[in-house]
C-alpha cells in the first residue's frame, strides 16, 4: 500500500488509435443525428431534450476516452465528478429561483 512518502501507483494505459477512430466516428454520427432530429417536428419540448441528451452522450465519450478519464486514477475521476456536481448545483439552484417565481415571464 502506498504510504505518505510513496507516490500512488497508477498504470500508464495507452489508448489505441483504433479506439480513438471508433469514438471519433461515433461523435460524427451523433452530430448527424442531432441535426436530423432537429429537422423533425417532435411533440412538446422533445426537440430540445433530444438535442441536449445527445450532446451529453457526446460529452461523456469525449471525457472518458479522448480525455482518458476512463483509464485515469481515482483522484482524477473524483476531480471530474466534483466538477460536474458543482456545475449541476450552479444550474439547478439558479433555475429553482427562476422557475418558482418567474417562469415564462414574458
Amino acid at each position: 500500500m502506498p504510504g505518505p512518502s510513496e507516490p500512488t501507483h497508477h498504470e500508464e494505459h495507452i489508448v489505441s488509435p483504433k479506439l480513438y477512430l471508433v469514438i471519433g466516428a461515433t461523435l460524427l454520427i451523433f452530430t448527424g443525428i442531432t441535426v436530423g432530429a432537429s429537422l423533425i417536428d417532435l411533440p412538446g419540448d422533445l426537440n430540445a431534450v433530444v438535442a441536449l441528451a445527445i450532446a451529453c452522450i457526446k460529452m461523456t465519450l469525449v471525457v472518458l476516452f479522448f480525455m482518458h478519464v476512463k483509464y485515469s486514477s481515482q483522484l482524477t475521476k473524483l476531480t471530474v465528478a466534483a466538477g460536474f456536481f458543482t456545475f449541476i448545483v450552479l444550474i439547478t439552484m439558479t433555475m429553482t429561483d427562476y422557475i418558482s417565481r418567474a417562469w415564462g415571464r414574458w
Partner: protein
Amino acid sequence: MDSHTVAAQTAETAHAEHEHPAFLRHHFESVEQQRESATFGMWLFLLTEIMFFGGLFCAYLIFRNWYYPAFVAGSHSLHLWAGTLNTTLLIISSFTMAMAVHASETRVRKALIGWMIATIILGSGFLCVKAYEWHDEWVEHHVPGLNFSPQGFLHGTKDYPDDKLSLDMAEKTQVYFSLYFAMTGMHALHMIIGVSLLTILLIQAWGGKYVEGHVAPIENFGLYWHFVDIVWIFLFPLLYLIRRHQ
C-alpha cells in the same frame, strides 16, 4: 557538503547522486507523480472553466424561457451548414489531438508533429468559419449595441414564415444575439489561445521535445482542447437548432 561545495557543483556533478530525466523537477519523487500532479492541476483549471461557461449557459436558459419566439427567430438566422461544419471540424480536431498525445506516449516525433499540425489547421478552419458567420451577422444588422435593427424580424422569412415577431419581441432578439456573441466569442477566444499554445508546443516538439517520456504538456494541452470541443458540442444545438423543423 558545505555551501561552497554545493555552489561549485555543475549540472552534471549534482545529478551524479541521483539519475533522473532532465524534465523531472526536484520537488517530485517520480515522473509518474509529476505527471499525475500536472493532470490534477489541469483538471482543477478546467473545473473553473466549467463554472465560467456555466454562468453563460444559465443566462441562456433563463432568457430562452422568457423570450422564446425571439430565440427561435434569432436561431433561424444562423447558418445551419456553418454550425454543422464547425462541429465536424472540432470533433475531428479532438481526434487528431488524441492521436498527438498517443504519438508523444509512443515517442514517435514525426507522428507527433503531423498530428499537431493537423489539429492547428482544423482549429484555424473553425475560426475562419466563425469569422465569416460573425461578418454575416454584422451585414444583417444583428449586432446589439453596434448596428442592430429589428426590421428583419418583423416579417417572416422564406424558410420560416412564422418567424414574424411583434416589435417588442423583435427587440428582444438582441438578448439572443448578445448571448450568441458572448458565448461564441468566449469560445473563439479559447480557440485562439489554444491554437497559439499549440503552435508553441509544435515548435518545441520540432526541436525534439515531448518524445522522450515527457508527455504531460501534450496530454494536458489535450485536456484543454477537448474541453473547448465539449463547450462547442453544447453551444451548437442550443444556438443553432432551436425549432429548426419547417
